């Protein structure tokens, strides 16, 4: 167990090198339970690599970290059991019906068989998707798919859910609806770790970190960051920081 029970993610001097390229350069931070933590950075800044290490998909080169109290380097199986994950490709099976997707992921995350129908009904009700139970996912609008994917990723009530650019490509109205779901999950005690491109979304986060060239250049609440960089919006903060970047997208 971690020293501080309130911190569900603790990262210290985490580094990942691919050959001579340092994708993630000595980053340290903590995320508290129930927090919505925004993980920002330009493409190629190292967000995805950092997130993959936290999810137990990739071994750190050096440094250490715990997620839900488990070491990310040595206990990745335990880590996986306690997290949810939603990627930018929303990762639902397009040729399966809405409820079949729910059943599959409930099965994967070990929801007891007897409880699966109950869980599915609850989810359909809270999403207002009852009438779409038998719709194939490919026939849903993109915004609905993303809401569904998010709900599926927390079907097993994980301690933390990792969202990798979850709202790519949808309109602002749908994004707002999506964030309502995120707030609801956070209110239920699920910690949300989210990467995003959209700076208006950064404003919704409790705290935000901004990565530039593999390092965390800023980490604070949106209000404090704006004060610190004497900016009126997160967009401006980000632009000021990102200007320093030497790395470009490859």
């Amino acid at each position, binding site marked *: 167990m971690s020293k501080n029970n309130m911190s569900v993610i603790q990262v210290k001097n985490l580094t990942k090198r691919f050959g001579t390229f340092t994708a993630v350069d000595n980053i340290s931070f903590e995320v508290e339970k129930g927090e919505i933590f925004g993980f920002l950075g330009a493409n190629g800044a190292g967000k995805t690599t950092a997130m993959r290490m936290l999810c137990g*998909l990739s071994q750190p080169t050096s440094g250490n970290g715990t997620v839900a109290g488990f070491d990310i380097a040595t206990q990745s199986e335990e880590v996986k059991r306690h997290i949810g994950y939603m990627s930018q490709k929303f*990762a639902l099976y397009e040729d399966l019906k809405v409820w079949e997707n729910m059943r599959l992921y409930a099965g*994967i995350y070990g929801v007891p068989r007897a409880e699966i129908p109950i869980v599915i009904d609850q989810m359909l009700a809270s999403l207002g998707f009852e009438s779409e139970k038998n719709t194939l996912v490919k026939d849903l609008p993109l915004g609905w798919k993303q809401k569904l994917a998010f709900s599926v990723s927390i079907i097993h009530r994980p301690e933390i859910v990792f969202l990798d650019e979850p709202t790519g490509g949808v309109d602002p109205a749908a994004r707002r609806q999506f964030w309502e779901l995120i707030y609801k999950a956070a209110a239920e005690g699920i910690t949300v770790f989210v990467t995003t491109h959209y700076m208006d979304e950064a404003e919704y986060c409790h705290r935000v970190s901004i990565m530039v060239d593999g390092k965390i250049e800023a980490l604070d609440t949106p209000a404090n960051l704006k004060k610190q960089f004497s900016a009126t919006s997160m967009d401006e903060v980000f632009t000021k920081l990102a200007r320093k970047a030497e790395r470009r997208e490859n």
Partner: protein
Amino acid sequence: MKDNIVKEKSYAFALRVNNSQFFAFVKKEFLYIFRDTWTMIILLLLPILMVVLFGFGISTEIKNTHVAVFDPSRDMATRTIVNRLSESEYFIVDKYLNDISEVESVLKNGDYGMVVVFSENFNENMNRGTAAVQLIADGSDPNTASQLSNFATAIINQWRMEDGALKMTGENNSQFSILNSQLKLLYNPTMKGAYNTVPGVLGLVLMLICTMMTSISIAREKEMGTMEVLLVSPVKPFTIILSKTVPYFVLSLVNLATVLSLAVFVLGVPIVGSFWLLIGLSLLFIFLCLCLGVLISIVAPSQIVAMLVSAVVMMLPTMMLSGLMFPVENLPLVLRWIAQVIPAKWFIEAARDVMIKGAGISAITTELLVLCGEAVLFLVVSMKRFKIRLG
């Protein structure tokens, strides 16, 4: 004591979870296949289509070839030969040419596979040994041409023996001397193409289902992003791979049954050897194909690459080099070497031996060993690659 109970409980829980994960997955995979109409068509109809096509349509055997005759003699002997040719199932003699100059145009046209030319006064000259018959076949398809002339030669030879034409001393005549050549076919005396086709189609179909479909379905998960989610989930990668192969394993068993029943009941190809040996051999090959499919899908980043690799690297050589279309012995040396590493080649050879020659397990030991070796190789390499990709 208390500790023990807790341990047992958690162990039971772990097992149950893994089982339900596995079944949830297999169920999903079947749903996916059933819902995709084109996949279903490919999986269930293609084998039938292939057996029927290769068995009846694209047969390499020669049947009902149209033959034209130029016969200036028009006597007893030539008429008997022509009758003998038409009576056989290979030839239909339905054109008499009026002039020798027509030979070329008739063959060029493509409607006639062969022209039989008799010398003048054939019957009379037979006794003097100067009677001659010439077989002119369309050499644009050399295999067919040589088979046609072989058959015709055999028929004419038989006539010579039976009709006492032995008296004639035509052996010094160059055209007649070829008639001495004799062809004897073992195991497949009527040269029925289906005998060769069935094991070949079996190899091709199993490769298609197990290698191609498996690799595409795993690559699809990578492409759709679902694989990433699965890797982040507590499901063991091994469970993912295993549950992906189960549906294709079941389907390939259905196809194995379809192809074999079609072969026996429709094409009339007997299973001379042990039925269970043939099934065992097929199961080994199915296992190998699944391993290969997994390996391809691990290397290939997308569905289209997986499909191309399976199609170009595996299916094409299988068709060309496995003896399904041309005998391996006739290939250039380099291609013959390549053929040695094609798994399907070994399977098809062994299946042919068991099905048609009735060979026992001792006769196909080499093939079985090669197939086992290759299966283990594919399995080990894909396990290694899978771990590297995760790290």
